């Protein structure tokens, strides 16, 4: 038996398929197809959680996605521990383990419940008022305590082992919601041949047909009709039917985000299934058939476990075969709760009484209830509920006052009416309109190509909804370009119908009362809190919401927003539309980060770029650093060397013998065409027209504002062909910058730009013996200093493969950069390495490269410059063509601020104590004794220990730096002030003689 409250004759689940599960360590049995909620209720368990603020005992309010109370932790293992799962949504599987939250030490006895007694301290806005003083207590006391108390549930502390998938989809018509209206719309659209996607958040299609026993369509019971229609849709090639799929966000141009829960309902999901799948759908037309959500009645202690929406009790009974109690009371302001009472009564459950707030309601359901012998009371209110861990009674009073009567019950079903689910419509930027007659916000002005049908459009009655939906589905397909429909509209034979109801607090929870009549269950917002917010000056509903936190919980106020709005409007004495409705935002229900991130995590978070020589460096034990997306060899430790020792050795080897360096990551762009030189003249500060083919030049690229954007050595291979190098990180933006000017400012120039970064592997061979290493492998290039001087380039062969051989240096030594097609990169490197071994060469990494270039005062754009540095500031005025009529940045360079005196200039810095290495980024002051805050006149941009110089070296940007040569400046640090002397930028081989061998 799957629980004492299971009614074998009711529901649609097969009693034969049981599933065992546990809640708070207690074992229970349910049935396959149950939700965790229906299975617990079948076992008579109503108490499942504690509220957020007051720690009040809570049960199930609903049977669906709107649930504010029944949040539990569902745990498969330590890593698969999901908090805040709505028990009304979680499907049962054999072996499911669930736990309650927000209670200590146990659900029935929770110490935090003291908050309920102390609740006068915690009224609306208490955060803003209580924790104001003393000021110092915020950081040390209040914030840590609030953070510890805040939040519901506990996040798993292990990485998520599940995988998630993601798909893009396009369709003509996307139908959101698989109730009667959604199915009718999907049928109409599908029959035209249009590509249709139909999605519903539930495991079973049918929406309210799952509990509306009075519905008959095409001669069948409504639920059976829905299943038949879904089977028909699934069989069509042009239709995709997605169950357990929530449309959580409606974005621009009919772009809708859906999340499909693929395996959370399975006992052992298997590794081939993702946990969830994100669908990003672009639809030509969207049909919103999202239904409506029942509202609760706002009365004193309306949150006691056992008090729930009438429609929830109907689903539990009619779909899951579970009675929510044995002696049930009903409190309503509209007809729909009568249907619940009638269904339960027919299933053998005692209905203690129906309390109807309306004075003289009439209708078939009322007659039927009376005919079944149910006590019906009009014009009366339930003014309070009794019981604590479970409701035990309801106290009834005529709504205008009078004698009280307490009726024992073990459950109360309530209905204040139905709120159209306009969430997605509102997310689409549509404007809702208030219907004063029915007191509902319904879709008004549309912003996108979508249409609302059925209950979410404020359409009452099954026949009207299906008529509207079928027509809308056919029209949507036609508007999307499909043929006319050839199907037949479903015929409604019988239906249930109700509308109206009430908004706001019921009698007994009015302004004169201090009772706890909950509006928002999850955030513990009462009618009194909302009134208080208005009394304290909140006028806009957006302010009331933030002050009280009404509607700000994980359920986003699905049941509470309209009540809150009505109470605020009443207190303000304004009509509801003037107070406004808070904005609906995505997601409709919580979405896991896993679904959004999908595969993009770990190594797939961002592409990793590796050079052709990477495997060799890896085999040599190189330590790598990330430079943008590139992995670059940082240093090559030998034996027990630490980074410092390895870098020192590599630096000395380069200057003593030679070093090999993988420079493949350098950006490379080929600039080709009859106007290539003209283009280069415009994009770089330097003159290029007269550069002879076979020669190289160090080029500087500016932005239009005159600041350095990039730099690099450029080789002219032919009159119409330049091989341009850029910084490693700058390659894409330099390419974009060049393309921008070529396409939009200088389109008259006949030039083509090609990124060749990945095509050429680059091996830098630097040092006194570099030529000896390369020469034996080179064919067709005269390697003599006369034929191949510093800053020249030749094409030829190395190791039998084509090469562009640059004689250039970023170390200050005689140096070469050997470009070979990337496929040959590692082979040529290995050949050069073998030669290098004969001459004592070392492989060096990016750290040694940085030290060596700093010893020579060569700048790195982005390290020694920061987007506010001009060529003059960097000491590179010589690279600006003074006779040029135009280049990008020419006008920026003459702006008043850029030629003013006292600009920060790049200089060398020598610490007075040569052993002290400055910290990069450290600030520089002229007088260390001045009061704090000191006037900072510059900062350190590059700083290293230089084994070759036998001391520390540094570069820094200092105001008026070049006029301060020899001056002593100060770098205040936490452990004391460091004295530095301003020096030239070149620390090694000042005359540059070594460049030429």
């Amino acid at each position: 038996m799957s629980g004492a409250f299971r009614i074998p004759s009711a529901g649609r689940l097969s009693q034969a398929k049981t599933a065992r599960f546990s809640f708070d360590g207690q074992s229970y049995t349910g049935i396959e197809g149950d939700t965790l909620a229906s299975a617990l209720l079948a076992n008579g368990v109503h108490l499942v959680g504690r509220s957020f603020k007051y720690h009040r005992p809570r049960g199930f309010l609903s049977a669906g996605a709107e649930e504010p109370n029944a949040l539990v932790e569902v745990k498969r293992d330590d890593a698969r521990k999901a908090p805040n799962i709505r028990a009304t949504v979680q499907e049962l599987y054999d072996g499911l383990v669930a736990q309650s939250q927000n209670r200590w030490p146990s659900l029935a006895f929770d110490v935090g419940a003291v908050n309920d007694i102390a609740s006068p301290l915690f009224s609306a806005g208490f955060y803003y008022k209580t924790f104001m003083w003393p000021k110092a207590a915020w950081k040390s006391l209040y914030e840590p305590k609030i953070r510890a108390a805040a939040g519901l549930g506990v996040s798993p502390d292990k990485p998520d082992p599940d995988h998630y998938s993601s798909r893009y989809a396009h369709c003509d018509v996307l139908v959101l919601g698989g109730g009667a209206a959604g199915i009718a719309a999907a049928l109409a659209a599908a029959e035209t041949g249009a590509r249709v996607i139909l999605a519903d958040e539930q495991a079973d299609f049918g929406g309210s047909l799952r509990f509306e026993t009075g519905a008959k369509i095409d001669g069948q019971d409504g639920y059976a009709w829905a299943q038949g229609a879904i089977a028909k849709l699934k069989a069509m090639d042009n239709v995709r039917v997605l169950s357990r799929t929530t449309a959580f966000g409606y974005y621009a141009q009919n772009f809708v985000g859906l999340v499909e829960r693929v395996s959370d309902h399975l006992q052992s999901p298997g590794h081939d299934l993702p946990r969830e799948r994100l669908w990003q759908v672009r639809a030509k037309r969207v049909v919103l058939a999202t239904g409506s959500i029942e509202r609760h009645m706002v009365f004193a202690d309306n949150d006691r476990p056992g008090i729930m929406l009438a429609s929830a009790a109907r689903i539990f009974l009619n779909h899951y075969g579970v009675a929510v109690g044995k002696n049930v009371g009903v409190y309503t302001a509209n007809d729909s709760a009568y249907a619940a009472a009638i269904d339960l009564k027919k299933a053998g459950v005692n209905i203690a009484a129906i309390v109807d707030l309306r004075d003289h309601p009439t209708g078939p359901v009322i007659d039927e209830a009376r005919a079944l012998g149910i006590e019906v009371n009009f014009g009366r209110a339930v003014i309070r509920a009794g019981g604590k861990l479970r409701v035990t009674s309801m106290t009834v009073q005529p709504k205008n006052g009078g004698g009280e009567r307490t009726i024992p019950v073990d459950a109360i079903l309530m209905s204040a009416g139905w709120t159209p689910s306009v969430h997605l419509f509102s997310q689409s930027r549509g404007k809702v309109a208030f219907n004063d007659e029915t007191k509902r916000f319904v879709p008004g002005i549309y912003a996108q190509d979508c249409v609302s049908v059925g209950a979410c459009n404020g359409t009452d009655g099954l026949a009207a909804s299906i008529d509207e939906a079928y027509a809308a589905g056919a029209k949507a397909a036609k508007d999307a370009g499909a043929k006319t429909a050839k199907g037949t509209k479903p015929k409604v034979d019988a239906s249930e119908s109700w509308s109206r109801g009430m908004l706001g607090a019921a009698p007994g929870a009015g302004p004169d009362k201090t009772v706890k009549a909950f509006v928002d269950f999850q955030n513990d917002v009462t009618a009194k809190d909302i009134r208080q917010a208005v009394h304290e000056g909140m006028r806009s509903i957006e302010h009331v919401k933030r002050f009280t936190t009404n509607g700000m919980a994980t359920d986003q106020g699905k049941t509470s927003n309209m009540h809150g709005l009505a109470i605020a409007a009443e207190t303000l004495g304004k009509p509801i539309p003037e107070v406004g409705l808070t904005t609906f935002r995505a997601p409709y229900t919580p979405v896991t980060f896993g679904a959004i991130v999908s595969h993009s995590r770990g190594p797939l978070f961002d592409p990793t770029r590796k050079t052709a020589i990477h495997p060799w460096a890896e085999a040599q034990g190189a330590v790598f650093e990330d430079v943008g997306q590139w992995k670059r060899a940082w240093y090559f430790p030998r034996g027990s060397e630490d980074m410092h020792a390895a870098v020192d050795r590599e630096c000395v080897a380069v200057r003593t013998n030679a070093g090999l360096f993988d420079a493949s990551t350098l950006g490379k762009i080929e600039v080709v065409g009859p106007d290539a030189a003209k283009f280069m003249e415009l994009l770089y500060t330097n003159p290029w027209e007269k550069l002879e083919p076979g020669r190289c030049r160090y080029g500087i690229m500016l932005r239009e504002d005159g600041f350095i954007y990039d730099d690099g050595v450029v080789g002219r291979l032919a009159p119409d062909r330049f091989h341009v190098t850029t910084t490693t990180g700058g390659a894409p933006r330099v390419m974009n910058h060049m393309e921008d000017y070529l396409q939009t400012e200088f389109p008259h120039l006949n030039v083509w730009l090609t990124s060749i970064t990945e095509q050429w592997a680059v091996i830098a061979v630097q040092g006194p013996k570099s030529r000896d290493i390369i020469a034996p492998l080179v064919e067709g290039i005269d390697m003599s200093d006369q034929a191949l001087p510093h800053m020249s380039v030749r094409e030829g062969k190395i190791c039998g493969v084509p090469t562009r051989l640059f004689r250039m240096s970023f170390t200050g030594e005689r140096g070469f950069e050997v470009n070979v097609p990337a496929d040959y990169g590692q082979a040529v490197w290995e050949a050069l390495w073998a030669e290098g071994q004969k001459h004592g060469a070392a492989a060096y990494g990016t750290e040694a490269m940085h030290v060596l270039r700093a010893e020579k005062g060569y700048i790195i754009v982005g390290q020694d410059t920061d987007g506010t540095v001009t060529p003059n500031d960097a000491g590179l005025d010589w690279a600006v063509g003074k006779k040029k009529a135009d280049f990008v940045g020419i006008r920026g360079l003459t702006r008043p601020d850029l030629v003013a005196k006292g600009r920060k200039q790049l200089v060398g810095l020598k610490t007075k104590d040569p052993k002290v290495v400055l910290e990069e980024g450290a600030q520089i002051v002229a007088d260390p004794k001045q009061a704090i805050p000191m006037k900072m006149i510059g900062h350190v941009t590059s700083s290293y220990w230089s084994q070759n110089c036998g001391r520390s070296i540094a570069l820094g940007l200092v105001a008026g730096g070049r006029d301060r040569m020899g001056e002593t400046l100060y770098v205040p640090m936490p452990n004391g002030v460091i004295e530095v002397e301003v020096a030239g930028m070149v620390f090694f081989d000042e005359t540059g003689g070594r460049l030429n061998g």
Partner: protein
Amino acid sequence: MLLIRCPYCEEERPELEFRNAGEAHIARSANMAGESDDDFEKFFFIRSNPKGIIYERWRHIHGCARFFNAVRDTVTDKFVMTYKAGEPKPAKLPGASK
């Protein structure tokens, strides 16, 4: 995610393929070096930042790589039209109501 029509590919493609490149129809002077401070300020720093119709440059960077111009409504975030780089500012906008 927006759909943007590339006037070169003649197709609507998702926003992910494009990159905004700032306001359009701001001509770079043929005599750049001779510009006054005021003119350079207008050229380089001052942008219209309108509420409503904006003319801006986009690049189909993960597609044909071409720069083109677009007319977009900054209130609705809707693209009114796109046209090729170098073409004049459209005199009339299709379906312009604002």
